[in-house]
Protein backbone atom coordinates (compact mmCIF):
# COMPACT_ATOMS: atom_id res chain seq x y z
CA UNK A 1 0.00 0.00 0.00
CA UNK A 2 1.22 3.44 -0.86
CA UNK A 3 1.34 5.83 2.06
CA UNK A 4 0.85 9.23 0.60
CA UNK A 5 -0.83 10.87 3.55
CA UNK A 6 2.30 12.69 4.60
CA UNK A 7 2.81 14.26 1.24
CA UNK A 8 -0.75 15.03 0.34
CA UNK A 9 -2.05 16.32 3.64
CA UNK A 10 -0.43 19.79 3.76
CA UNK A 11 -1.23 20.29 0.11
CA UNK A 12 -4.86 19.44 0.74
CA UNK A 13 -5.01 21.82 3.63
CA UNK A 14 -3.62 24.59 1.44
CA UNK A 15 -6.19 23.83 -1.24
CA UNK A 16 -9.05 23.85 1.25
CA UNK A 17 -7.93 27.14 2.77
CA UNK A 18 -7.51 28.80 -0.58
CA UNK A 19 -10.86 27.64 -1.84
CA UNK A 20 -12.77 28.79 1.21
CA UNK A 21 -10.96 32.11 1.41
CA UNK A 22 -11.23 32.75 -2.30
CA UNK A 23 -14.96 32.26 -2.43
CA UNK A 24 -16.48 34.11 0.47
CA UNK A 25 -19.95 33.74 -1.00
CA UNK A 26 -19.74 29.97 -0.82
CA UNK A 27 -19.22 29.46 2.85
CA UNK A 28 -19.93 26.06 4.28
CA UNK A 29 -21.34 25.60 7.72
CA UNK A 30 -21.87 22.24 9.31
CA UNK A 31 -25.64 22.35 9.64
CA UNK A 32 -26.99 24.29 6.69
CA UNK A 33 -25.20 25.10 3.48
CA UNK A 34 -27.31 28.12 2.78
CA UNK A 35 -26.68 29.70 6.11
CA UNK A 36 -23.97 32.29 6.39
CA UNK A 37 -22.41 31.81 9.80
CA UNK A 38 -18.99 32.13 11.35
CA UNK A 39 -16.29 29.54 10.74
CA UNK A 40 -14.78 29.09 14.16
CA UNK A 41 -14.17 25.37 14.31
CA UNK A 42 -12.16 25.40 11.08
CA UNK A 43 -9.49 27.64 12.53
CA UNK A 44 -9.43 25.65 15.74
CA UNK A 45 -8.68 22.49 13.75
CA UNK A 46 -5.71 23.92 11.89
CA UNK A 47 -3.96 24.74 15.19
CA UNK A 48 -4.06 21.14 16.33
CA UNK A 49 -2.77 19.65 13.06
CA UNK A 50 0.68 21.21 13.04
CA UNK A 51 2.25 17.85 14.03
CA UNK A 52 3.46 15.47 11.28
CA UNK A 53 0.98 12.87 10.13
CA UNK A 54 2.69 9.88 11.69
CA UNK A 55 2.67 11.60 15.07
CA UNK A 56 -1.00 12.58 15.00
CA UNK A 57 -2.80 10.65 12.27
CA UNK A 58 -6.15 11.95 11.03
CA UNK A 59 -8.86 9.35 11.70
CA UNK A 60 -10.62 10.34 8.47
CA UNK A 61 -7.55 9.77 6.30
CA UNK A 62 -5.38 7.13 7.96
CA UNK A 63 -4.90 4.01 5.86
CA UNK A 64 -1.82 2.15 7.11
CA UNK A 65 -2.56 -0.63 9.60
CA UNK A 66 0.21 0.52 11.94
CA UNK A 67 -1.18 4.03 12.32
CA UNK A 68 -4.71 2.70 12.56
CA UNK A 69 -3.64 0.49 15.43
CA UNK A 70 -2.03 3.45 17.14
CA UNK A 71 -5.22 5.46 16.79
CA UNK A 72 -7.33 2.64 18.15
CA UNK A 73 -4.97 2.34 21.11
CA UNK A 74 -5.55 6.04 21.76
CA UNK A 75 -9.27 5.36 21.75
CA UNK A 76 -10.10 6.99 18.42
CA UNK A 77 -11.65 4.74 15.83
CA UNK A 78 -10.89 5.51 12.15
CA UNK A 79 -13.77 6.85 10.08
CA UNK A 80 -15.29 4.60 7.43
CA UNK A 81 -13.50 1.81 5.60
CA UNK A 82 -9.79 1.70 4.85
CA UNK A 83 -10.60 1.75 1.16
CA UNK A 84 -12.61 4.93 1.60
CA UNK A 85 -9.91 6.57 3.68
CA UNK A 86 -7.26 5.71 1.11
CA UNK A 87 -9.44 7.12 -1.65
CA UNK A 88 -9.99 10.34 0.30
CA UNK A 89 -6.22 10.89 0.54
CA UNK A 90 -5.97 11.33 -3.18
CA UNK A 91 -9.19 13.25 -3.67
CA UNK A 92 -9.38 17.01 -3.91
CA UNK A 93 -11.76 16.89 -0.94
CA UNK A 94 -13.88 19.78 -2.13
CA UNK A 95 -16.87 20.61 0.07
CA UNK A 96 -20.20 19.53 -1.36
CA UNK A 97 -21.45 23.05 -2.01
CA UNK A 98 -18.41 23.94 -4.10
CA UNK A 99 -18.34 20.93 -6.38
CA UNK A 100 -17.38 22.24 -9.82
CA UNK A 101 -20.41 21.16 -11.86
CA UNK A 102 -21.99 23.95 -13.80
CA UNK A 103 -25.59 22.77 -13.70
CA UNK A 104 -25.28 22.02 -10.01
CA UNK A 105 -23.92 25.48 -9.26
CA UNK A 106 -26.65 27.13 -11.34
CA UNK A 107 -29.21 25.08 -9.45
CA UNK A 108 -27.70 26.19 -6.16
CA UNK A 109 -27.98 29.81 -7.27
CA UNK A 110 -31.69 29.36 -7.97
CA UNK A 111 -32.24 27.68 -4.63
CA UNK A 112 -30.23 30.28 -2.73
CA UNK A 113 -32.20 33.08 -4.30
CA UNK A 114 -35.44 31.37 -3.38
CA UNK A 115 -34.20 30.99 0.18
CA UNK A 116 -33.40 34.70 0.33
CA UNK A 117 -36.94 35.48 -0.80
CA UNK A 118 -38.37 33.13 1.81
CA UNK A 119 -36.28 34.74 4.56
CA UNK A 120 -37.49 38.16 3.49
CA UNK A 121 -41.06 36.84 3.60
CA UNK A 122 -40.46 35.52 7.10
CA UNK A 123 -39.19 38.86 8.42
CA UNK A 124 -42.08 40.67 6.75
CA UNK A 125 -44.62 38.29 8.26
CA UNK A 126 -43.02 38.61 11.69
CA UNK A 127 -43.33 42.38 11.51
CA UNK A 128 -46.95 42.01 10.42
CA UNK A 129 -47.68 39.72 13.36
CA UNK A 130 -46.08 42.08 15.86
CA UNK A 131 -48.02 45.00 14.37
CA UNK A 132 -51.30 43.09 14.71
CA UNK A 133 -50.46 42.09 18.27
CA UNK A 134 -49.75 45.70 19.15
CA UNK A 135 -53.11 46.91 17.84
CA UNK A 136 -55.95 47.15 20.36
CA UNK A 137 -58.60 44.43 20.08
CA UNK A 138 -61.49 46.78 19.20
CA UNK A 139 -59.57 48.28 16.33
CA UNK A 140 -58.56 44.86 14.99
CA UNK A 141 -62.20 43.80 14.70
CA UNK A 142 -62.93 41.97 17.93
CA UNK A 143 -61.38 39.22 19.99
CA UNK A 144 -62.36 36.34 17.69
CA UNK A 145 -61.20 38.00 14.48
CA UNK A 146 -57.86 38.99 15.92
CA UNK A 147 -57.25 35.54 17.34
CA UNK A 148 -58.08 33.73 14.12
CA UNK A 149 -55.96 36.13 12.06
CA UNK A 150 -53.01 35.67 14.40
CA UNK A 151 -53.44 31.90 14.31
CA UNK A 152 -53.48 31.87 10.53
CA UNK A 153 -50.37 34.03 10.35
CA UNK A 154 -48.50 31.86 12.82
CA UNK A 155 -49.37 28.78 10.76
CA UNK A 156 -48.16 30.47 7.61
CA UNK A 157 -44.96 31.50 9.39
CA UNK A 158 -44.25 27.88 10.38
CA UNK A 159 -44.89 26.83 6.78
CA UNK A 160 -42.46 29.48 5.51
CA UNK A 161 -39.80 28.32 7.95
CA UNK A 162 -40.06 24.83 6.51
CA UNK A 163 -40.07 26.11 2.93
CA UNK A 164 -36.92 28.14 3.51
CA UNK A 165 -34.84 25.05 4.26
CA UNK A 166 -36.56 22.23 2.42
CA UNK A 167 -34.47 22.53 -0.74
CA UNK A 168 -31.13 22.35 1.05
CA UNK A 169 -29.23 19.16 0.11
CA UNK A 170 -27.20 19.29 3.32
CA UNK A 171 -30.40 19.27 5.35
CA UNK A 172 -31.61 16.26 3.41
CA UNK A 173 -28.32 14.48 3.95
CA UNK A 174 -28.25 15.20 7.67
CA UNK A 175 -31.81 14.00 8.05
CA UNK A 176 -31.12 10.79 6.16
CA UNK A 177 -28.10 10.18 8.39
CA UNK A 178 -30.31 10.58 11.44
CA UNK A 179 -28.40 13.62 12.67
CA UNK A 180 -31.29 16.04 12.29
CA UNK A 181 -31.69 18.55 15.08
CA UNK A 182 -35.28 18.21 16.26
CA UNK A 183 -35.33 21.72 17.67
CA UNK A 184 -35.42 23.06 14.11
CA UNK A 185 -38.75 23.09 12.27
CA UNK A 186 -37.40 21.61 9.04
CA UNK A 187 -36.13 18.41 10.66
CA UNK A 188 -39.36 18.06 12.61
CA UNK A 189 -41.29 18.43 9.38
CA UNK A 190 -39.18 15.81 7.58
CA UNK A 191 -39.46 13.39 10.50
CA UNK A 192 -43.20 13.87 10.55
CA UNK A 193 -43.46 13.15 6.84
CA UNK A 194 -41.40 10.00 7.24
CA UNK A 195 -43.48 8.82 10.17
CA UNK A 196 -46.74 9.40 8.35
CA UNK A 197 -45.48 7.50 5.34
CA UNK A 198 -45.37 4.12 7.04
CA UNK A 199 -45.25 3.83 10.82
CA UNK A 200 -48.34 5.89 11.52
CA UNK A 201 -50.33 3.97 8.93
CA UNK A 202 -49.38 0.68 10.59
CA UNK A 203 -50.29 2.01 14.02
CA UNK A 204 -53.67 3.32 12.90
CA UNK A 205 -54.41 0.08 11.11
CA UNK A 206 -53.59 -2.02 14.17
CA UNK A 207 -55.60 0.05 16.63
CA UNK A 208 -58.61 0.15 14.36
CA UNK A 209 -58.50 -3.47 13.23
CA UNK A 210 -58.16 -4.71 16.80
CA UNK A 211 -61.04 -2.39 17.73
CA UNK A 212 -59.12 -0.49 20.37
CA UNK A 213 -60.48 2.71 18.92
CA UNK A 214 -64.18 2.21 19.53
CA UNK A 215 -63.62 0.02 22.60
CA UNK A 216 -61.33 2.15 24.73
CA UNK A 217 -61.68 5.60 23.22
CA UNK A 218 -64.15 6.74 20.58
CA UNK A 219 -61.56 8.48 18.44
CA UNK A 220 -57.83 9.03 18.22
CA UNK A 221 -55.80 10.90 15.62
CA UNK A 222 -52.16 10.17 16.49
CA UNK A 223 -49.83 13.14 16.04
CA UNK A 224 -46.89 11.90 18.10
CA UNK A 225 -44.69 8.96 17.19
CA UNK A 226 -44.66 6.46 20.03
CA UNK A 227 -42.21 3.62 20.42
CA UNK A 228 -42.50 1.09 23.22
CA UNK A 229 -39.61 -0.89 24.71
CA UNK A 230 -39.75 -3.80 27.16
CA UNK A 231 -36.27 -4.58 28.49
CA UNK A 232 -34.68 -2.57 25.68
CA UNK A 233 -36.38 -4.51 22.91
CA UNK A 234 -38.87 -2.62 20.79
CA UNK A 235 -42.45 -3.83 20.53
CA UNK A 236 -44.34 -3.32 17.29
CA UNK A 237 -47.94 -2.12 17.67
CA UNK A 238 -50.07 -5.19 18.37
CA UNK A 239 -47.24 -7.60 19.18
CA UNK A 240 -47.67 -10.38 21.70
CA UNK A 241 -45.44 -9.75 24.71
CA UNK A 242 -44.34 -12.54 27.06
CA UNK A 243 -45.70 -12.22 30.58
CA UNK A 244 -42.29 -12.11 32.26
CA UNK A 245 -41.09 -9.42 29.84
CA UNK A 246 -43.92 -7.12 30.79
CA UNK A 247 -43.52 -7.40 34.56
CA UNK A 248 -41.50 -4.19 34.58
CA UNK A 249 -42.92 -0.95 33.26
CA UNK A 250 -42.02 -0.22 29.62
CA UNK A 251 -39.91 2.61 28.34
CA UNK A 252 -41.45 5.00 25.87
CA UNK A 253 -39.98 7.10 23.12
CA UNK A 254 -42.52 9.80 22.37
CA UNK A 255 -41.51 11.97 19.45
CA UNK A 256 -43.40 15.24 19.25
CA UNK A 257 -43.32 16.97 15.87
CA UNK A 258 -44.26 20.43 17.10
CA UNK A 259 -42.24 23.04 18.86
CA UNK A 260 -42.71 23.71 22.53
CA UNK A 261 -43.40 21.48 25.48
CA UNK A 262 -46.53 19.55 26.23
CA UNK A 263 -47.83 18.02 29.42
CA UNK A 264 -49.44 14.65 28.80
CA UNK A 265 -51.27 11.94 30.65
CA UNK A 266 -50.20 8.38 29.93
CA UNK A 267 -52.65 5.55 30.49
CA UNK A 268 -52.43 1.82 29.84
CA UNK A 269 -55.85 0.19 29.69
CA UNK A 270 -56.82 -3.44 29.22
CA UNK A 271 -60.39 -3.75 27.88
CA UNK A 272 -60.42 -7.58 27.87
CA UNK A 273 -60.63 -8.75 31.48
CA UNK A 274 -63.12 -11.63 31.46
CA UNK A 275 -66.07 -11.22 33.77
CA UNK A 276 -67.69 -14.58 34.47
CA UNK A 277 -70.78 -13.21 36.21
CA UNK A 278 -71.94 -11.02 33.38
CA UNK A 279 -70.44 -13.25 30.68
CA UNK A 280 -68.62 -10.24 29.30
CA UNK A 281 -65.41 -8.25 29.52
CA UNK A 282 -64.28 -5.54 31.91
CA UNK A 283 -61.72 -2.78 31.78
CA UNK A 284 -58.66 -2.54 33.96
CA UNK A 285 -56.21 0.34 34.18
CA UNK A 286 -52.65 -0.97 34.36
CA UNK A 287 -50.93 2.35 34.55
CA UNK A 288 -51.83 5.99 34.89
CA UNK A 289 -49.49 8.95 35.09
CA UNK A 290 -50.27 12.64 34.71
CA UNK A 291 -48.20 15.76 34.08
CA UNK A 292 -45.52 14.04 32.00
CA UNK A 293 -43.56 16.69 30.06
CA UNK A 294 -42.63 15.84 26.45
CA UNK A 295 -41.04 17.94 23.76
CA UNK A 296 -39.46 17.43 20.36
CA UNK A 297 -35.98 17.13 21.84
CA UNK A 298 -36.64 15.23 25.09
CA UNK A 299 -38.48 12.16 23.93
CA UNK A 300 -37.55 9.41 26.36
CA UNK A 301 -40.08 8.55 29.03
CA UNK A 302 -39.39 5.66 31.40
CA UNK A 303 -42.66 4.73 33.03
CA UNK A 304 -40.81 3.15 35.96
CA UNK A 305 -38.75 6.27 36.59
CA UNK A 306 -41.57 8.80 36.78
CA UNK A 307 -41.97 10.54 40.10
CA UNK A 308 -44.33 8.78 42.53
CA UNK A 309 -45.08 12.00 44.42
CA UNK A 310 -46.14 14.15 41.51
CA UNK A 311 -46.81 12.00 38.42
CA UNK A 312 -47.70 8.34 38.88
CA UNK A 313 -51.33 7.90 39.89
CA UNK A 314 -51.52 4.14 39.43
CA UNK A 315 -48.16 2.34 39.26
CA UNK A 316 -47.44 -0.39 36.69
CA UNK A 317 -49.26 -3.67 37.16
CA UNK A 318 -47.97 -6.62 35.19
CA UNK A 319 -50.56 -7.77 32.64
CA UNK A 320 -51.43 -11.47 32.87
CA UNK A 321 -53.93 -13.50 30.91
CA UNK A 322 -55.76 -16.41 32.45
CA UNK A 323 -55.47 -19.73 30.71
CA UNK A 324 -58.23 -20.19 28.19
CA UNK A 325 -59.22 -16.55 27.99
CA UNK A 326 -58.81 -14.76 24.66
CA UNK A 327 -55.82 -12.49 24.28
CA UNK A 328 -55.81 -9.18 26.14
CA UNK A 329 -55.22 -5.94 24.26
CA UNK A 330 -53.09 -3.63 26.37
CA UNK A 331 -53.66 -0.23 24.84
CA UNK A 332 -51.46 2.69 25.73
CA UNK A 333 -52.77 6.18 25.18
CA UNK A 334 -50.98 9.49 25.35
CA UNK A 335 -53.45 12.21 26.14
CA UNK A 336 -52.67 15.87 25.90
CA UNK A 337 -53.73 17.97 28.85
CA UNK A 338 -55.73 21.07 27.99
CA UNK A 339 -53.49 24.09 27.23
CA UNK A 340 -50.53 22.08 28.66
CA UNK A 341 -51.70 23.01 32.14
CA UNK A 342 -50.69 20.65 34.95
CA UNK A 343 -53.46 18.69 36.64
CA UNK A 344 -53.83 18.78 40.39
CA UNK A 345 -51.99 15.57 41.26
CA UNK A 346 -53.40 15.11 44.77
CA UNK A 347 -56.98 15.47 43.56
CA UNK A 348 -56.44 13.04 40.69
CA UNK A 349 -54.72 10.55 42.99
CA UNK A 350 -57.58 10.76 45.49
CA UNK A 351 -60.21 10.28 42.80
CA UNK A 352 -58.63 7.64 40.57
CA UNK A 353 -57.62 4.97 43.04
CA UNK A 354 -59.66 2.12 41.57
CA UNK A 355 -58.15 0.10 38.74
CA UNK A 356 -61.16 -1.99 37.84
CA UNK A 357 -63.69 -0.70 35.36
CA UNK A 358 -62.19 2.75 35.17
CA UNK A 359 -63.15 3.95 31.72
CA UNK A 360 -60.67 6.08 29.82
CA UNK A 361 -63.62 7.92 28.24
CA UNK A 362 -64.62 9.10 31.70
CA UNK A 363 -61.13 10.33 32.45
CA UNK A 364 -61.00 12.08 29.10
CA UNK A 365 -64.20 13.95 29.84
CA UNK A 366 -63.35 14.66 33.44
CA UNK A 367 -59.91 16.20 32.86
CA UNK A 368 -60.40 17.60 29.34
CA UNK A 369 -57.81 15.33 27.74
CA UNK A 370 -57.23 14.78 24.04
CA UNK A 371 -55.64 11.61 22.65
CA UNK A 372 -52.56 12.50 20.61
CA UNK A 373 -50.74 9.18 20.57
CA UNK A 374 -51.43 5.49 20.97
CA UNK A 375 -49.68 2.16 21.15
CA UNK A 376 -50.86 -1.38 21.58
CA UNK A 377 -49.49 -4.71 22.66
CA UNK A 378 -51.18 -7.96 23.46
CA UNK A 379 -50.71 -10.59 26.12
CA UNK A 380 -51.85 -14.18 26.15
CA UNK A 381 -51.33 -17.26 28.28
CA UNK A 382 -47.77 -18.50 27.83
CA UNK A 383 -45.28 -20.60 29.74
CA UNK A 384 -44.11 -17.73 31.94
CA UNK A 385 -47.56 -16.47 32.92
CA UNK A 386 -48.05 -18.80 35.91
CA UNK A 387 -44.75 -17.72 37.43
CA UNK A 388 -45.65 -14.04 37.01
CA UNK A 389 -49.12 -14.65 38.48
CA UNK A 390 -47.60 -16.21 41.58
CA UNK A 391 -45.15 -13.35 41.90
CA UNK A 392 -47.76 -10.62 41.76
CA UNK A 393 -50.34 -12.63 43.75
CA UNK A 394 -52.96 -12.95 41.04
CA UNK A 395 -56.01 -14.48 42.77
CA UNK A 396 -57.27 -16.88 40.09
CA UNK A 397 -53.93 -18.32 39.00
CA UNK A 398 -55.11 -21.94 39.09
CA UNK A 399 -58.30 -21.41 37.10
CA UNK A 400 -58.56 -22.36 33.48
CA UNK A 401 -61.39 -20.77 31.55
CA UNK A 402 -63.52 -22.87 29.23
CA UNK A 403 -66.08 -21.86 26.70
CA UNK A 404 -69.60 -22.50 27.86
CA UNK A 405 -70.91 -25.58 26.11
CA UNK A 406 -74.08 -24.75 24.25
CA UNK A 407 -76.62 -27.61 24.08
CA UNK A 408 -77.39 -28.53 20.52
CA UNK A 409 -80.85 -27.86 19.24
CA UNK A 410 -83.22 -30.86 19.45
CA UNK A 411 -83.09 -33.18 16.48
CA UNK A 412 -85.50 -32.23 13.75
CA UNK A 413 -86.96 -34.80 11.48
CA UNK A 414 -85.91 -34.24 7.92
CA UNK A 415 -89.41 -34.77 6.66
CA UNK A 416 -91.83 -32.94 8.90
CA UNK A 417 -95.45 -32.52 8.13
CA UNK A 418 -94.99 -28.98 6.82
CA UNK A 419 -92.79 -30.25 4.01
CA UNK A 420 -95.46 -32.46 2.65
Amino acid sequence: MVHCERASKPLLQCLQKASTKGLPALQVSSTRTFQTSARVQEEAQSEAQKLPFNKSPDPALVSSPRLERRLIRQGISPVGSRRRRAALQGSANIPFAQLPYQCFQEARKVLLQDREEKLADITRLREKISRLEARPTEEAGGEQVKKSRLGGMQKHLEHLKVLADINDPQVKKKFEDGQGDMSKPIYRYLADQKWREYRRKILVQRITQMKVIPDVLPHCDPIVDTKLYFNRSAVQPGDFVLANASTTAPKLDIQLFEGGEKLVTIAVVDPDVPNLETDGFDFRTHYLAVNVPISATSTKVDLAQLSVESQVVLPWEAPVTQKGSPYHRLSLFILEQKDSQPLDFAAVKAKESVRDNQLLRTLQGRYHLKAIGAHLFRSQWDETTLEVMEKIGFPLADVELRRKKIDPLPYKRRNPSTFR
Partner: protein
Amino acid sequence: MRPLSPVLASLANVFKIPISQTLARPAIVPGPVTAAAQPAAARTFSSTNALLKRKQGAKTDRRITLIRYFLNHPLTPRPLRFSRTRYLRHWTIHRAWQLFQNQQRRAQTLELERQWHAMNAACEELRTGAGDGGRLFRKSMNKRGVFRDMFPIEYGRLQTDTPAQEGWNHAWVRPERR
Protein backbone atom coordinates in the same frame (compact mmCIF):
# COMPACT_ATOMS: atom_id res chain seq x y z
CA MET B 1 -40.22 -31.70 -25.07
CA ARG B 2 -39.82 -28.22 -23.62
CA PRO B 3 -42.97 -26.11 -23.46
CA LEU B 4 -42.84 -22.82 -25.26
CA SER B 5 -42.73 -19.66 -23.19
CA PRO B 6 -46.07 -17.83 -23.08
CA VAL B 7 -44.55 -14.90 -24.95
CA LEU B 8 -43.40 -17.08 -27.81
CA ALA B 9 -46.73 -18.87 -27.82
CA SER B 10 -48.64 -15.63 -28.03
CA LEU B 11 -46.33 -14.38 -30.78
CA ALA B 12 -46.90 -17.60 -32.64
CA ASN B 13 -50.61 -17.13 -32.19
CA VAL B 14 -50.43 -13.61 -33.61
CA PHE B 15 -48.39 -14.63 -36.65
CA LYS B 16 -50.50 -17.75 -37.21
CA ILE B 17 -47.53 -20.06 -36.91
CA PRO B 18 -48.90 -23.50 -36.13
CA ILE B 19 -46.48 -24.16 -33.25
CA SER B 20 -49.26 -24.58 -30.73
CA GLN B 21 -50.58 -27.56 -32.63
CA THR B 22 -47.49 -29.48 -31.76
CA LEU B 23 -48.33 -28.94 -28.11
CA ALA B 24 -51.82 -30.33 -28.54
CA ARG B 25 -50.50 -33.43 -30.30
CA PRO B 26 -49.63 -36.30 -27.97
CA ALA B 27 -45.93 -36.17 -27.37
CA ILE B 28 -44.70 -39.41 -28.74
CA VAL B 29 -41.00 -38.88 -28.95
CA PRO B 30 -39.25 -42.17 -29.25
CA GLY B 31 -35.56 -42.02 -28.69
CA PRO B 32 -32.89 -42.65 -26.15
CA VAL B 33 -32.65 -39.00 -24.99
CA THR B 34 -36.16 -38.64 -23.55
CA ALA B 35 -36.16 -42.17 -22.28
CA ALA B 36 -33.05 -41.44 -20.29
CA ALA B 37 -34.43 -38.21 -18.98
CA GLN B 38 -37.71 -39.66 -17.69
CA PRO B 39 -38.10 -42.59 -15.37
CA ALA B 40 -38.88 -45.45 -17.71
CA ALA B 41 -41.48 -47.16 -15.54
CA ALA B 42 -43.64 -44.08 -15.16
CA ARG B 43 -43.55 -43.58 -18.91
CA THR B 44 -44.73 -47.09 -19.68
CA PHE B 45 -47.80 -47.14 -17.48
CA SER B 46 -49.05 -43.65 -18.04
CA SER B 47 -51.12 -42.70 -21.03
CA THR B 48 -51.21 -39.05 -19.91
CA ASN B 49 -49.39 -36.42 -21.85
CA ALA B 50 -46.34 -35.24 -19.92
CA LEU B 51 -47.48 -31.65 -20.29
CA LEU B 52 -50.95 -32.42 -18.99
CA LYS B 53 -49.56 -34.42 -16.14
CA ARG B 54 -47.68 -31.43 -14.82
CA LYS B 55 -49.24 -29.59 -11.93
CA GLN B 56 -51.55 -26.83 -13.08
CA GLY B 57 -51.34 -24.82 -9.85
CA ALA B 58 -47.75 -23.70 -10.30
CA LYS B 59 -48.46 -21.48 -13.30
CA THR B 60 -47.15 -17.95 -13.03
CA ASP B 61 -49.29 -15.01 -13.95
CA ARG B 62 -48.93 -13.95 -17.57
CA ARG B 63 -48.43 -10.33 -16.59
CA ILE B 64 -45.58 -11.28 -14.29
CA THR B 65 -43.99 -13.26 -17.08
CA LEU B 66 -44.23 -10.27 -19.38
CA ILE B 67 -42.80 -7.90 -16.79
CA ARG B 68 -39.90 -10.27 -16.24
CA TYR B 69 -39.38 -10.60 -19.97
CA PHE B 70 -39.14 -6.89 -20.55
CA LEU B 71 -37.09 -6.19 -17.42
CA ASN B 72 -34.54 -8.82 -18.32
CA HIS B 73 -34.49 -7.92 -21.96
CA PRO B 74 -31.03 -6.81 -23.15
CA LEU B 75 -32.52 -3.69 -24.73
CA THR B 76 -33.93 -2.51 -21.41
CA PRO B 77 -31.61 0.17 -20.01
CA ARG B 78 -29.95 -0.56 -16.71
CA PRO B 79 -31.43 1.06 -13.59
CA LEU B 80 -30.07 4.45 -12.62
CA ARG B 81 -27.55 4.00 -9.80
CA PHE B 82 -25.88 7.02 -8.25
CA SER B 83 -23.40 7.48 -5.46
CA ARG B 84 -24.57 9.42 -2.44
CA THR B 85 -23.05 12.72 -3.47
CA ARG B 86 -24.10 12.37 -7.05
CA TYR B 87 -27.64 11.56 -6.02
CA LEU B 88 -27.68 14.66 -3.81
CA ARG B 89 -26.44 16.76 -6.71
CA HIS B 90 -29.11 15.24 -8.94
CA TRP B 91 -31.73 15.99 -6.30
CA THR B 92 -30.53 19.59 -5.96
CA ILE B 93 -30.80 20.16 -9.67
CA HIS B 94 -34.20 18.50 -9.78
CA ARG B 95 -35.53 20.67 -6.96
CA ALA B 96 -34.14 23.81 -8.56
CA TRP B 97 -35.78 22.92 -11.86
CA GLN B 98 -39.13 22.28 -10.20
CA LEU B 99 -38.83 25.56 -8.32
CA PHE B 100 -37.94 27.45 -11.48
CA GLN B 101 -40.89 26.00 -13.36
CA ASN B 102 -43.17 26.86 -10.48
CA GLN B 103 -41.94 30.44 -10.47
CA GLN B 104 -42.50 30.68 -14.21
CA ARG B 105 -46.02 29.33 -13.97
CA ARG B 106 -46.79 31.72 -11.16
CA ALA B 107 -45.46 34.70 -13.11
CA GLN B 108 -47.56 33.71 -16.12
CA THR B 109 -50.71 33.41 -14.04
CA LEU B 110 -50.09 36.75 -12.38
CA GLU B 111 -49.53 38.43 -15.73
CA LEU B 112 -52.78 36.99 -17.08
CA GLU B 113 -54.61 38.17 -13.99
CA ARG B 114 -53.13 41.63 -14.36
CA GLN B 115 -54.26 41.80 -17.99
CA TRP B 116 -57.74 40.62 -17.12
CA HIS B 117 -58.08 43.25 -14.40
CA ALA B 118 -56.81 45.98 -16.71
CA MET B 119 -59.41 44.98 -19.32
CA ASN B 120 -62.09 44.90 -16.66
CA ALA B 121 -61.15 48.38 -15.45
CA ALA B 122 -61.16 49.72 -19.00
CA CYS B 123 -64.64 48.35 -19.63
CA GLU B 124 -65.86 49.82 -16.37
CA GLU B 125 -64.41 53.17 -17.33
CA LEU B 126 -66.19 52.96 -20.67
CA ARG B 127 -69.48 52.15 -18.97
CA THR B 128 -69.40 54.91 -16.40
CA GLY B 129 -66.99 57.55 -17.60
CA ALA B 130 -67.83 57.94 -21.29
CA GLY B 131 -70.77 60.21 -20.56
CA ASP B 132 -73.21 58.56 -22.93
CA GLY B 133 -75.09 56.58 -20.32
CA GLY B 134 -73.15 53.39 -21.12
CA ARG B 135 -74.31 53.23 -24.72
CA LEU B 136 -70.84 52.64 -26.11
CA PHE B 137 -70.21 49.97 -23.56
CA ARG B 138 -73.43 48.15 -24.43
CA LYS B 139 -72.59 48.37 -28.12
CA SER B 140 -69.13 46.96 -27.56
CA MET B 141 -70.41 44.14 -25.42
CA ASN B 142 -72.99 43.15 -27.99
CA LYS B 143 -72.22 39.71 -29.34
CA ARG B 144 -74.83 39.76 -32.10
CA GLY B 145 -73.49 38.62 -35.40
CA VAL B 146 -70.14 37.55 -33.99
CA PHE B 147 -68.82 34.57 -35.93
CA ARG B 148 -72.04 34.56 -37.96
CA ASP B 149 -71.64 36.88 -40.92
CA MET B 150 -67.85 37.07 -40.92
CA PHE B 151 -65.24 34.95 -39.27
CA PRO B 152 -62.05 36.57 -37.91
CA ILE B 153 -59.11 35.58 -40.04
CA GLU B 154 -56.97 35.17 -36.87
CA TYR B 155 -59.07 32.21 -35.83
CA GLY B 156 -58.50 30.47 -39.14
CA ARG B 157 -55.84 28.43 -37.42
CA LEU B 158 -55.29 27.24 -33.86
CA GLN B 159 -54.01 30.03 -31.57
CA THR B 160 -50.42 29.48 -30.46
CA ASP B 161 -48.01 31.27 -28.13
CA THR B 162 -45.29 31.69 -30.75
CA PRO B 163 -45.52 32.37 -34.50
CA ALA B 164 -45.27 29.48 -36.90
CA GLN B 165 -41.93 28.40 -38.30
CA GLU B 166 -42.63 29.40 -41.88
CA GLY B 167 -44.79 32.45 -41.08
CA TRP B 168 -47.76 33.35 -43.27
CA ASN B 169 -48.31 31.42 -46.41
CA HIS B 170 -48.95 34.25 -48.86
CA ALA B 171 -49.13 31.97 -51.84
CA TRP B 172 -52.18 30.21 -50.55
CA VAL B 173 -55.33 30.54 -52.58
CA ARG B 174 -58.67 29.03 -51.92
CA PRO B 175 -59.06 25.79 -53.82
CA GLU B 176 -61.62 26.31 -56.55
CA ARG B 177 -64.86 24.52 -56.07
CA ARG B 178 -66.03 22.45 -59.02
